[in-house]
């Protein structure tokens, strides 16, 4: 069975890999978009915190014997709390300065976190087994679909959907959107906006840690896993439109798929295709596909 001259299992296999990458892109760029919206900084520590999320799952298993399912909740909570401490004590004091300072600070933080984990665990990485309940797979006839990979996609869709619902359909979300537009006025209505900012940073960082736990059984848990993926995610956030929730989710999945397709038809370009798309989008629609023109 062929598709445009390509064996169907190969074609579908690449699409699946694309979709899985897209799932990670979507969850990571969603967190970045949330943080950018309220804090106005590109969170350069995002990739490192994704890595920390994976390591926390690994450490929980290794030292405490806490398995995958609890870790999927605990790691985002732990890393989210860590993020809130960072926001409260490092980012808030410089919030009134040029946003460049926030960017530099998160960049420094990323280097620091990566350095610490590299020092302790080296660069080879640790393996994290797929939980028993998600081992095996389905034979779809034209290809084999590993259960864990299907789960990654489902989990990412659920988390993105829930976050979208929180932001777009709840009162808290409306308050967050309003604070993005005019934080002063929202404060003048009696909302503790600084607290809201801290919670938002925690939420964004928690999403990164969630992606990290999802990634742990697929990729090895590795101090550099964050910096490998995050540059692509930055490009995706730009393509979707900085700060756009819908844009981050949609372009995450779309570009993952697009990257997969490129790997089928022109593998040589698959590593740069997202950056090519970014360049084109920046020329044609500088505000991004889903961004509001300034």
């Amino acid at each position, binding site marked *: 069975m062929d598709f445009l001259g390509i064996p169907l299992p190969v074609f579908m296999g690449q699409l699946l890999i694309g979709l899985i990458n897209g799932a990670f892109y979507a969850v990571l760029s969603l967190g970045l978009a949330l943080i950018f919206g309220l804090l106005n900084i590109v969170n350069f520590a995002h990739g490192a915190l994704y890595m920390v999320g994976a390591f926390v799952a690994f450490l929980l298993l290794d030292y405490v014997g806490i398995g995958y399912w609890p870790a999927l909740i605990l790691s985002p909570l732990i890393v989210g709390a860590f993020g809130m401490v960072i926001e409260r004590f490092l980012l808030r004091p410089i919030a009134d300065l040029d946003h460049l300072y926030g960017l530099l600070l998160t960049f420094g933080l990323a280097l620091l976190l990566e350095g610490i984990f590299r020092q302790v665990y080296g660069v080879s990485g640790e393996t994290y087994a797929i939980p028993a309940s998600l081992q095996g797979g389905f034979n779809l006839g034209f290809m084999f679909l590993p259960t864990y990979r299907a789960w990654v996609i489902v989990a990412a869709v659920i988390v993105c959907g829930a976050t979208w619902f929180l932001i777009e359909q709840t009162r808290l979300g409306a308050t967050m959107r309003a604070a993005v537009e005019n934080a002063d006025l929202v*404060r003048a*209505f009696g*909302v503790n906006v600084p607290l809201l900012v801290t919670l938002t940073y925690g939420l964004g960082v928690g999403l990164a840690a969630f992606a990290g736990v999802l990634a742990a059984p697929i990729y090895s848990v590795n101090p550099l896993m964050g910096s490998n993926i995050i540059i692509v995610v930055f490009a995706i956030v730009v393509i979707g439109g900085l700060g756009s929730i819908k844009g981050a989710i949609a372009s995450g999945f779309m570009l993952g798929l697009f990257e997969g397709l490129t790997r089928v038809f022109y593998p040589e370009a698959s590593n740069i295709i997202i950056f090519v798309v970014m360049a084109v989008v920046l020329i044609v629609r500088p505000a991004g596909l889903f961004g509001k023109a300034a």
Partner: protein
Amino acid sequence: MTRSATIARSGRPIWVKCMAEPLLVVDQLQSWYGESHILHGMSFEVGKGEIVTLLGRNGAGKTTTLRSIMGLVKQRSGSVRYEGKETIKLSANQIARSGIAFCPEERGIFSSLTVKENLLLPPEIAQGGMSTERVYELFPILKTRGNSQGTKLSGGEQQMLAIARILRTGARLLLLDEPTEGLAPVIVEKIGEIITKLREEGFTILLVEQNFRFAERVGDRHYVVEHGEVVDRFERDEVAANREKITGYLGV
């Protein structure tokens, strides 16, 4: 100048005699935006249930006064007491929680929120706010356009929304910054009716206006602001005799 001197010298006027302090007392309020010194000792007061206006030309410091009361201008000194409690050290959200609500000059309707979300955005800070049904009764348009994007409303409708959303919260003192600015006469008329109704319902209002004809209709007392200071004040019954002087201040 003479008038402001008398106010400043007599310091604590009328209310000392009748024991209870007015709802809002602004005393020697000074504010800065960075290096620029904008308010040079504003002093005035607003009694419970009154409509008090701040009049003055462009750039006199009226908006800065409201933003300073609200805690949105961080560099400020002097005294702002609400219900007898000093608020000058509080942050904007704490000041709002003490019962003051703000309707900004640029209206501040959020474009990423629907009309309904805009209306329901300010949290309830005290009991006794207006019910949502009553708000819809006063502003029926907000009900019919509930799902539109907030900024898709016309200027007048946005102004209604900006006023409506601070009525639900339980705040008793409303700071309204030029609610009639740039609106057609029928809409100005409507806003006048609403402000009068609000007073009947027990709200206290500090109104910033450049439209004196509007201000004199609704206001119980008027303060004239120039270069960040109160330079004159007129009670409602003094307006008729001083009309020329007032229009002189406003340069109209």
